[in-house]
């Protein structure tokens, strides 16, 4: 089960194609899975960027940020993940909006793809805007082009597309008079916040996929709770998508940083080669 059948890397973002036929059959755009590399791993929520019911596989893009994602990134083709649970979360609402803008950064470049595809199939005009530090860090482009009327780029060094970030491109096209009826953003929290602020003055309905800390992913623990419009919501079941104009970003950032200290400890123990206990020894 959950065999890793294909793997590649673009600057710290690891593409992992995993055998999970039941999930491939039941997943919808906007949903995620929770994976464990091995029996002693953390449970990590990852958006599913693509799936194939013929091969029974799902495609994940994993940003290597700490010990658990590093351990996933070290897995080889032919290895099996210990657990893949999903699909989780509520699917994206796919409507006939008109013009829909997608913004993706880091793992979000891959993660916006299935929603963009579904929106395109629903008859929308799709503009995808992706950001990276420099031109060689983009990925999943061919697929994104196939489902977008237009793909726009933003890079920190200006080596591809506009010099800047997704929100700079959005502001630019809005100022040019492009009418955007709906926006979806996926990426790191800072990017989601900045993009939401860019669409706010224009009152563009804005959905952001939040990546708060999760444990079970079924609503049982409440670790992922976020304040949206003054109400506590669970990102794992009520989300992951919420109205970007109503999210309490400060609280989300604080909650996401809760384990920074422990993550450093775990990372150091890994680099010092600590022994992993045998299954069931505890």
């Amino acid at each position, binding site marked *: 089960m959950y065999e890793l059948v294909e793997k590649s890397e673009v600057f710290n973002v690891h593409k992992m194609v995993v055998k999970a036929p039941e999930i491939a059959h039941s997943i919808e755009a906007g949903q995620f899975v929770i994976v464990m590399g091995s029996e002693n791993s953390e449970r990590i929520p990852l958006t599913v960027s693509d799936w194939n019911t013929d091969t029974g596989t799902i495609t994940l893009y994993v940003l290597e940020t700490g010990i658990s994602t590093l351990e996933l990134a070290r897995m080889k083709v032919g290895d099996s993940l210990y657990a893949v*649970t999903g699909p989780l979360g509520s699917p994206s609402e796919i409507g006939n909006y008109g013009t829909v803008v997608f913004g993706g950064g880091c793992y979000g470049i891959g993660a916006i793809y299935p929603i963009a595809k579904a929106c395109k199939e629903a008859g929308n005009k799709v503009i995808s805007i992706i950001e990276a530090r420099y031109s060689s860090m983009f990925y999943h482009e061919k697929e994104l082009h196939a489902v977008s009327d237009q793909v726009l780029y933003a890079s920190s060094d200006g080596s591809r597309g506009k010099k800047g970030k997704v929100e700079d491109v959005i502001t630019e096209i809005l100022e040019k008079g492009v009418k955007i009826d709906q926006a979806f953003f996926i990426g790191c929290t800072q990017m989601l916040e900045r993009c939401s602020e860019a669409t706010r003055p224009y009152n563009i309905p804005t959905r952001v996929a939040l990546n708060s800390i999760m444990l079970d992913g079924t609503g049982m623990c409440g670790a992922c709770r976020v304040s949206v419009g003054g109400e506590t919501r669970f990102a794992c079941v009520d989300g992951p998508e919420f109205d970007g104009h109503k999210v309490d970003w400060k609280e989300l950032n604080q909650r996401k940083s809760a384990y920074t200290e422990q993550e450093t400890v775990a990372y150091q123990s890994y680099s010092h080669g600590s022994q992993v206990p045998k299954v069931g020894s505890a």
Partner: protein
Amino acid sequence: MELTAKERMAIERHGMAEQPPDTRNRNFEEVPYGYTPEEAVAEAQRCLSCKKTTCVSGCPVEVPIPEFIALVAEKKFAEAARLIKTKNVLPAVCGRVCPQETQCEGVCVRGKKDIKEAVAVGNLERFVADYERENNLAEVPEIKKKNGLKVAVIGSGPSGLTVAGDLIQLGYEVTIYEAFHRGGGVLVYGIPEFRLPKKIVESEINALEDLGVKIYYNSVIGRLYKVDDLFNVLGFNAVYVGVGAGLPIFLNIPGNNFNGVFSANEYLTRSNLMKSYLFPQYRTPMIIGKKVAVLGGGNVAMDSARTAIRLGAEKVTIVYRRAREQMPARAAEAHHAEEEKIEFRLLSSPVEIFGNDEGWATGMKCQRYELGEPDESGRQRPVPIEDSFFEFDCDQVLVSIGGEANPLITKTTPDMRTNKWGYIETDDWGRTSKKLVYAGGDIVTGAATVISAMGAGRMAAKAIHEDLMKESDETVTPDWW
């Protein structure tokens, strides 16, 4: 040699030897060591074998208590375990986690004057189950010829395991769908190692698998498959829903979302299922609070408080709205918590959680309560005392004030009726309003006990068998009918 009633009465109750409080509060090993065979026999001799078996009627699954105890007195320990298993498939678990003082032991004639004098039914149940398991004396039950019918069980907690165990023996093909990567439900994510060693749960699950029960892990029904898919796509003939209660409740007070504020579900799942007490070898991190406040007075609150002490908290305080006598926790757990120097702030309830600029909890403001008129449950209602606020420092808050129904299954099964709180409506046998769908345990009753969930599982297994047999022609009568 037969003892006289007088001689039996003269024997004093045998407690179980335990790890001393100042040792156990730094480890996750089980607290009581268990009986020696000699202690078990002596304790069994205290039973008067009453004609009127009030103890049996005090048991939700009607374990034949005097009969199994008589076997213990004859040193027929494995036979005693087998006799219990005709009514209760998880005796090693129930001997440890049942609230005996409100069930069998609570109505024991020897405990009429003082509950502490009741025959130690729970200890004896634990002893015989452990004896059978540790000496590999478990008998593989007879499995009826496969009848070609398939039953899906959603959730591998106590009720799901019971349904699976009963139906596999009757010849059904049984498949359990478990959301987590390990089986056991609340027995593994909720109840800590020091109260219920996980190897016991594992051995129960292995035994079911040996009988042919299939368990699919990482399978969230309601997402991966809807209940209708289980019938239409996967070809099951009946479905049992035993998914537990699910969603945690947080108090509706300011400061709920500060870092350091956990649902007990999250805290215990991190420590128990994800083994973060072995961090960083196990990768799931845990916030180690120095001053920990636990909200609530049930078993989950005691488990959270005692886990916090073991993880290295300097001070743990239980904040509970009612009085000590009204705490729903098992007497032994509250007693163990007290021994482990956990402080109780009774008749108090928080009104605000304080935090710092970085978003971490720093303290709590509470209001004092007094007991007023009895409410519908017969317990005296706690009434807030005006202007009786007090504050204290805490850097971690564990919220253990109950839960709500998880809607993942009910929302995707609109033709199955729920009550106004979202719990599934069933008849006395676990039949839901949807044909051939059954439910039991916390998703029907709200938070309750392991044994009542098992009782519900047994009833539902009977109903499933009866209904499916009516549909096919064949009739099979099980021994326990």
